[in-house]
């Protein structure tokens, strides 16, 4: 039996790439369509390795997101913890779902995260209240989910992360 945990660097690298994709500058019109890469990667790892990536890890990932974006510390920590909790309680079912069903769940989860983040930001005066367009990001997240899922699964199997 190989060591108990394996391939931490794959997980760290995937999150690093997600952070990069999250802050790469987009043109003005495409801003709303940016998928929530960090949340997606987080959902995948919780689903695949629920015994390694849990609420605590999600909290740290969220805190780093806050620091990176310069937003109020704790917003993403809070929403990602909630996301992790829901994903943990769903992960058995999620694994059996087809890609389309998974995308639907991802749409709901990311939409929840984005709504929570948006509400806190508006209440604390961090962003200007606007329309519902901020939820377009959840739609694009659901759209890229199947491809991201396949890619991360290949990575996980290739490097034997467990």
């Amino acid at each position, binding site marked *: 039996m190989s060591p108990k945990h394996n391939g931490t660097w794959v997980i760290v690298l995937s999150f690093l790439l997600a952070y*990069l994709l999250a802050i790469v500058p987009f043109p003005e019109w495409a801003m709303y369509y940016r998928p929530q890469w960090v949340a997606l990667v987080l959902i995948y790892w919780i689903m695949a390795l629920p015994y390694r990536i849990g609420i605590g890890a999600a909290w740290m990932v969220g805190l780093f997101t806050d*620091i990176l974006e*310069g937003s109020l510390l704790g917003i993403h920590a*809070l929403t990602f913890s909630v996301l992790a909790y829901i994903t943990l309680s769903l992960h058995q079912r999620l694994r059996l779902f087809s890609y389309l069903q998974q995308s639907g769940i991802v749409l709901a989860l990311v939409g929840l995260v984005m709504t929570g983040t948006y509400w806190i930001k*508006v209440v604390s*005066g961090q962003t200007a209240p606007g329309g519902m367009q901020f939820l377009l990001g959840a739609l694009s997240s659901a759209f890229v989910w199947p491809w991201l899922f396949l890619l991360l699964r290949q990575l996980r199997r290739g490097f034997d992360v467990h």
Partner: protein
Amino acid sequence: MAFVALALSVMFADNRYDYLDRVRFSVGYFTTPVYWLADTPARVSAWFDDVFVSQRDLLEENASLRQQLLFAQRELQLLAGLASENSRLRELQEASQAVQGRVMTAEIINVSNDPGVRRVLINRGANHGVTEGQALLDAHGLMGQVEEVLPFTSWILLITDSRHGTPVQVNRNGERAIARGSRGEAPGLELEFVPITADIEEGDLLVSSGLGQRFPKDYPVAQVVSVVHDPGQPFAIIRARPLAQMDRTRHVMLVIPDDETITSAPVIFEAGEQTNLPPTAEPVISEPVAAEADGPAGVSP
């Protein structure tokens, strides 16, 4: 549950008190490499542009730049005369010298990924001597001010953010107002609390008035694009287009403040605050101007 409570307490602490700013600042050492990596594609393409360029293009560019320099120098000569005349007139009036200030060049390396916020990241930070509240310019006009300083980078709040108010005056007649970032989709500015009788027309140039002592005086800010006098509204609805090329330029300048300039954290409007509040309730940055705009149309000497 514990994590939710922890997150809530961190949020509260960060919102109300200052001591987490030091944490933010230190962690800035870790976030800088990520932004550096994210900026790599832009730098690589700039490098390609620099390396793979034909000699003919360079010569052409060189010629046109020389011509521009010639024109600029000619205008500068005229300006020198004007400046001395101006300072003599100021001496006659015993008015203080206009704040000019030196500048430090910087590059925009990232923009905020939240569509509701207009902030950019520049590649100058505390290690280069950046302080909170410094003004940022590009070649065409005022862009914003430093909101958060990190070790090697800093966040700039642009003047088009809906939480930002810029004290301006009309270049033609000295009419003063507050230009606030518009809440709509298109990035622009709105003049707040301007009485219907104010003499502001389409095409007027707005320059920074220097009131609030945050932005240097007389830098171009915006051009008025529309003036609407709605009889049902107490104030005129005036929209302006910022002159700085917010989303196209990469090279910007930070104004290094003189000793007399106040530097502290920018005063942020509450995002939920509506324009129909009485102007006296405005934060410090706009107080003198808001009071002025509320009264009869005051034309400054």
